[in-house]
């Protein structure tokens, strides 16, 4: 086995919009969240994010996939979740796709933490985490056909 560490990546940037693309497709079980996070971690590091930001990316994707498993598929493990990750020069983009029942993101109100605690609720934090971590978050919902969450985070070249 001969090997080289040189990646001849120069060629693609002229052609494709994104430098590198990765896809992971797994059954819709919370059991696979750990693998999903490993996937995000490997790609986040390749994109140049530091350890703290990699963890935030893991969290955003974990929350999005947990929502798909819980809400879009009602915890039925027989469906599929697809995570696509795209790295470009200075940003990373994730696309989370399901064929589940979908929802209207505009109708989800963000309750404040005190209210959630008063109501003894255990949920309602996922979308808030996603929105506070990522720089851009968009849903495209076609219930039962293709629901897609696209979210993007820019790489800060000069980390504070």
């Amino acid at each position, binding site marked *: 086995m001969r090997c080289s560490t040189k990646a001849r990546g120069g060629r693609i940037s002229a052609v494709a919009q994104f430098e590198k693309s990765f896809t992971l497709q797994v059954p819709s079980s919370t059991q696979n969240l750990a693998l999903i996070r490993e996937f995000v971690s490997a790609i986040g590091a390749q994109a140049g994010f530091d350890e703290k930001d990699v*963890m935030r990316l893991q969290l955003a994707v974990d929350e999005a996939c947990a929502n798909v498993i819980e809400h879009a598929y009602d915890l039925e493990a027989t469906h599929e979740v697809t995570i696509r990750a795209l790295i470009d020069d200075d940003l990373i983009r994730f696309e989370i796709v399901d064929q589940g029942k979908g929802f209207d993101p505009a109708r989800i109100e963000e309750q404040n933490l005190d209210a959630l605690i008063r109501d003894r609720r255990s*949920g309602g934090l996922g979308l808030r985490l996603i929105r506070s971590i990522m720089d851009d978050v968009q849903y495209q919902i076609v219930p039962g056909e293709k629901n897609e969450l696209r979210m993007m985070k820019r790489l800060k070249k000069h980390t504070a």
Partner: protein
Amino acid sequence: MSTNFRIERSELGGAVVLALDGFLDAHTAPQFENAISSEAEAGHLHLIADCRKLSYISSAGLGVFMSFIEEIREKGGDIKLSGIEPKVYQVFEVLGFHELFDIVDNVEAAGALFDQGSRRKD
């Protein structure tokens, strides 16, 4: 089933310490939920979540803290958190949890807060 999260239970003075080890996510949160709810049912209301070995927490894990804290405080108890590493602490911060919970450096400091009968945050 899930080997990537474990809870170890011990006692410190009058408090129960639940040491969280590994990854607390939507898959493993039910384990934590069961642990807290057993303590609450047994009337153990001085709880310390020792997070020294907690590598990760998602909203499912945070939700467990959130859903029990009101009941436990009403009964005169509290859940205090200790030893959270910086990478994990940022998650608590993003959501404002550090405003709502006593978070201290180590289990001893958490125990001392119970001994003083004080709650730093209310």
